């Protein structure tokens, strides 16, 4: 039997088959398991015997409700660790929980009923566990930056999708974090992207591989603000039902692994972002523009969504300025409004 071999790499330094970290990751997982059992034990004790915990830590007996709540949190973190193959998020959740515990102890210190000796002992213990959690979380996260991959199925031929993508200046139409891409010729391009706190980062990139209708890979040049690389593959879907677009991105964000983990906590999940970008690519190619609803006019994140009712004139102007309205939309909405409401 001859299996049709898929190429494993396109000459870049990263692929999906990238070898897993060896010993440190295994050790970190073992440490995580230990922390998981600790979470379950402490969580159950807090839930079932909150008074005993109050006594040991020296806080007032009046707070057993809160202690039970923290017990539930511990238990959840513990279960999370056992439920995940690689419990990176759950261990980071433990770090966040430790911070909460320390804050609570800090507040309790100022209470007049506080038994300060016992509290100091409890705080020292929490600090020791926090250190372990941090070490474990950092080891699990690793230092290799962010890797995002996503795919989507588009109702067009690989050649059509390739041609749209190869014109890099089209990318900001569907990649939300890109401001502009300029083709400098000779396989070189200049990229500008939105960065946290309203800043912009820029870099130059070069094409490494470019096979029409099949694959494009690129990599940032040395001395870039953001060290990154990307690959996009275009495959004919079985039965010629369009094109499977597969994208891999890798970049080292500000603040390395810790920065990436914090960004994750605030919902900036790179895989999700790339999924959303590809969904917009599909919309642009299949229906002609990015589709917006009343709720998603300004943003796609759930917490940032406005109510599902029409925007007023100010919000529309804001949407136009922030380019979240589809690029082709040049509606004369002011006259339209006046025409109907008078």
């Amino acid at each position, binding site marked *: 039997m001859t299996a049709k071999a898929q190429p494993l790499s396109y000459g870049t330094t990263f692929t999906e088959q990238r070898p897993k970290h060896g010993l440190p990751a295994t050790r970190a997982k073992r440490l995580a398991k230990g922390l998981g059992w600790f979470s379950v034990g402490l969580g159950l004790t807090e839930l079932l015997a909150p008074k005993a915990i109050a006594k040991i830590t020296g806080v007032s007996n009046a707070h057993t409700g809160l202690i039970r709540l923290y017990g539930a949190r511990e238990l959840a973190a513990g279960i999370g660790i056992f439920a995940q193959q690689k419990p990176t998020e759950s261990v980071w959740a433990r770090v966040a929980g430790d911070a909460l515990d320390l804050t609570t102890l800090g507040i309790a210190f100022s209470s007049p009923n506080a038994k300060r000796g016992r509290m100091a002992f409890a705080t020292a213990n929490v600090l020791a566990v926090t250190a372990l959690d941090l070490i474990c979380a950092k080891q699990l996260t690793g230092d290799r930056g962010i890797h995002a991959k996503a795919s989507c199925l588009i109702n067009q031929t690989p050649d059509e999708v390739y041609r749209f993508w190869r014109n890099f200046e089209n990318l900001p139409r569907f990649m939300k974090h890109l401001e502009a891409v300029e083709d400098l010729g000779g396989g070189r391009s200049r990229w500008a992207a939105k960065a946290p706190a309203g800043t912009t980062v820029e870099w130059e990139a070069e094409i490494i591989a470019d096979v029409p209708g099949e694959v494009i890979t690129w990599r940032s040049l040395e001395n870039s603000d953001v060290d990154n690389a990307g690959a996009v593959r275009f495959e004919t879907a079985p039965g010629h039902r369009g094109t499977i677009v597969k994208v891999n991105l890798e970049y080292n964000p500000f603040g390395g692994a810790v920065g990436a983990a914090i960004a994750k906590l605030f919902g900036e999940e790179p895989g999700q972002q790339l999924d959303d970008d590809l969904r917009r690519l*599909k919309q642009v190619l299949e229906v002609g523009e990015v589709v917006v*609803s009343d*709720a998603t006019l300004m943003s*796609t994140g759930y917490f940032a969504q406005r109510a*599902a009712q029409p925007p007023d004139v100010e919000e529309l102007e804001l949407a136009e300025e922030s380019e979240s309205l589809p690029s*082709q939309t040049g*509606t004369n909405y002011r006259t339209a409004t006046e025409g109907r409401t008078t």
Partner: protein
Amino acid sequence: MKANCWYGKTDTRVEDVPDPQILNQRDAIVKISSTAICGSDLHLYNGLIPTMQRGDILGHEFMGEVVEVGREITNLKIGDRVVVPFPIACGNCFFCQDEMFSLCENSNPNAWMSEKMFGHAASGIFGYSHLTGGYAGGQAEYARVPFADVGPIKVPHHLTDEQVLFLSDIFPTGFMGAEMCDIMPGDTIAIWGCGPVGQFSIRSAFLLGAERVIAIDEVPERLQMAELGGAQTIDFSRQNVYEALMDLTGGRGPDSCIDDVGMEAHAPAIVEAYDRVKQAMMLETDRPHALREAIMCCRNGGTVSVIGVYGGFIDKFPMGSVMQRSLTIRTGQAHVQRYMPRLLQLIENGDIDPSFVVTHIMNLEDAPKAYEMFKKKQDGCIKVVLKPGMNGHHETIH
């Protein structure tokens, strides 16, 4: 403009909101002449659908006059009278091209939310939570209609609003419920729920060649309307449904069963209490009594067609009965665009007059009162049509 907005469990308010605008170039703006409250709006009203936000405009059954079109729209012009289908569909994607419009891949900008909850996302829907896109609904004076070159159907002026309005949802929904049964001549079809969708399933089953339709409910006026449609009825508050159906079918069971009830079923006290407790504790999101019963009653090798709305998880699902007895389960949000031309033709031919289901016509301003009445099934209420700017407030049709 005025619009009926959601503010929490059993709290809707008619408020002044900005007029809708063209946002995508395949949009149209429709000035609404009639809009209806759907049974599925009650799931929102009762706070059972997640991702609702205060201020969301409700409503997905509406019609009216085109007052503005985007640059890409050539099939409609200002002044056209149209009925708008509740699923928003692009017409270009894999599913639209297969006429599975309620599965459109491009019309739900919040698809990621649906993917988290359901594994994959379905189409956008007007006024039906952020999970289905966060589109303003049609219980308003105007609405923005995306993909106006795919959805809205032009309707002739000699038909009244009440005759064509239900092409937007409940007629195609009831029809698809019956169509999914692949009815053969001589078939007996049992239908759980005689609300508006159930009423259309009853009539559609006959239109598709059913010999006998047995309809199940407990509300006297609904059972009466079902009988007027030609169905035999079972009042589940007085009779054991399984026994009554076996009695009527010589123990074999109905050839197909349609669940026109969905996630908020009423049931005999003990079963209902069990599901209500589990729903309140978030251990299941839906109360699936009708579905369980439909499965147990269906004949061997028959089809259970689920057109009532479910939103999440159920338990005590009799999978053994489905597997051991070779049942087929078919389901889905109605692919309204697929059915509209055919059903409009039936109305024009006089084969059916959908206005039979309307019991109340009210001013849009009275929407909160109408929801309350519909939820509590007061005053013989089966279907409410709301009219923006209607003279007077209330009209009851019995």
